[in-house]
């Protein structure tokens, strides 16, 4: 069973003459535990595709199955529940909640799941913060951290609930190369250790080279798909 199965997916923005095909008949299967990068120039549809997989946006036609759930066919509330249970997001601009501390930001997705006791949450948060090397900053606010540190928090937040799929839209684009590499190594390591499926986008060659599978997009179409060893 594929973690993500995309069939004949098309996304158009606007209608009639001004319609833009952001995605044009995409077919793609991502297996569980894969570490896949969506590569391609600006405007090629990377973000749009990630949003479709994340049920943040609705397809014009076609299907997106995540763990066999057709996410476009379920209502808002169940989409929200689907995201809270199965998905982790990492954004280019970190998107941490500024009023919460690092610890609280990471704890937040667990709180939403409602099935963990405070002790369980504390334990999980401490563990993941240790894994991303941020334990000492647990009580700072996001505004008091560097970009690289904030993105580590975002990764910890996306991973703490051990979701089925982590979607990361240009997670290193706002970071310098040293920090970018470190973040990528971290993501890769967590992917291997936890067997979590990673799909991320990038147009940074250094990043793309480290991926095990590269799906190349251009003008909303898949132009290439190569897999390579670790």
């Amino acid at each position: 069973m594929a973690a993500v199965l995309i069939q004949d997916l098309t996304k158009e923005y606007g209608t009639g003459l001004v319609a833009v095909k952001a995605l044009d008949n995409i077919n793609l299967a991502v297996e569980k535990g894969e570490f896949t990068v969506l590569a391609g120039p600006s405007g090629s549809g990377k973000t749009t595709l990630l949003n479709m997989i994340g049920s943040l946006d609705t397809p014009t036609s076609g299907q997106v199955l995540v763990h066999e759930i057709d996410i476009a066919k379920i209502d808002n509330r169940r989409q929200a529940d689907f995201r809270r249970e199965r998905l982790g997001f990492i954004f280019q601009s970190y998107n941490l909640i500024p009023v919460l501390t690092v610890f609280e930001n990471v704890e937040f997705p667990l709180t939403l799941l409602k099935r963990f006791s405070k002790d369980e949450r504390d334990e999980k948060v401490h563990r993941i913060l240790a894994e991303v090397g941020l334990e000492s900053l647990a009580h700072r606010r996001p505004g008091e951290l560097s970009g690289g540190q904030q993105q580590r928090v975002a990764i910890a937040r996306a991973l703490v609930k051990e979701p089925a799929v982590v979607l990361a839209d240009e997670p290193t684009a706002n970071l310098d190369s040293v920090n970018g590499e470190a973040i990528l190594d971290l993501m890769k390591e967590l992917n291997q250790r936890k067997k979590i499926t990673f799909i991320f986008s990038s147009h940074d060659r250094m990043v793309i080279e480290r991926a095990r599978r590269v799906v190349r997009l251009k003008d909303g179409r898949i132009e290439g798909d190569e897999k390579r060893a670790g």
Partner: protein
Amino acid sequence: MLIQMALKNVFRNVTRTRITVLAVFWGVFFSMLADGVNKGLEWQIGNLLIRTETSTIKIVNRNYPLDELENPLDYPVREYEPIVGFLAARSDVKAYSPRITFHGSLSNGSDEIRAIGLGIEPEKEDKVFDRSGAISQGKYLVSGEEGVLIGSDLAGLLGLRVGDMVTVISQAAEMGTNAYDLEIKGLIQTGNPVLDSGAFWIPLQFTQDFLSMTGITDIAVNLGNDSRILPFQSEVRKAKFPDKLKVFSWRDYAKDFIELVAFRKRIINILTTMILLIAGFGIMNTMLMAMMERKREIGNLMAMGVRRNEIVRLFLIEGMMIGVLGSTVAIILSCIVVYYFQLQGIPLGGAIQNALGSTPIAGKFYAYLDPVQALFYYILGIVIAVVSTVYPAWKSAKLQPVEAIRGIGGQ
């Protein structure tokens, strides 16, 4: 978690929170002050009328005019002994005073001033209105003795003192003008400007002779309690008296004043509503701004799986906290202020006196703190804050996650 986040959001933008909290604060604070003034005015007018002019009720001829321009002597109660008997036998009657109220004037020999004449039985009048306690100079009337008591301000206007002689003049048209010289026994200061600057008291029997009549015009009755007015009215109606009678309460008499207060109340209600509306719009606007600012954050929350109704709740809780904050401070402060003026009163200077208009209040104005009303405004303040947040909350929840995330420079 939502509550914790909402609380943190409240303290996130101090300027914005200050605006919204202040909006609630002023709305509630102003409403409370306005209500305190109104209730104080109403209570004070009623109290003063009861204490000095009307007592709880008055028994009069059925056609007796409440209009001051008409002559009460045209509507006398000719046989009042049966009424006095009726009153004396009732346990709910604390005291009563048969009187003659007439239009007259006083003259010091050179100046003549119009005034209300009151023919009274001194002891009975004293029991109802404590006139002897209101004597500022001289002595109270003794029954069987001739003499006059004059409102202290009226005496001042005429340059009269205790012991002076004054000419009492009646202007009952049918009897022509009638004048009589009387010695001033005392000056009366009731606190009611209508009486203090425009009334005099003479013995009832003398008044009857003077006006050549045998009856009276009204009997003031102290029932001690407003709740007894209605039953009393119906009992008087049931009992058969030689004259056709009517019982009016201090409220009927105070109608003009109370209407004035009611009018003022309407104006204040409109003002209060406007202020509260403005407060509501202020909150709505600032919350909309907050929503725009947090667009990306909202999208991010949605991406993490926060449901739309939870986004709505997040905003409503924030609104409620703002409401609680503003309303609590406003209620505490306004209660202190109003209660202070309830105890201490506000000395009436020119401006305030003018603002009060022709209300029979002199000396000090007292506010009145109504705890039920305070509770009402407290809750109202919170409700307004929450209601004003409904639209921004709803708008936030309606955002599409993608749009929200793209919000400000996001990808």
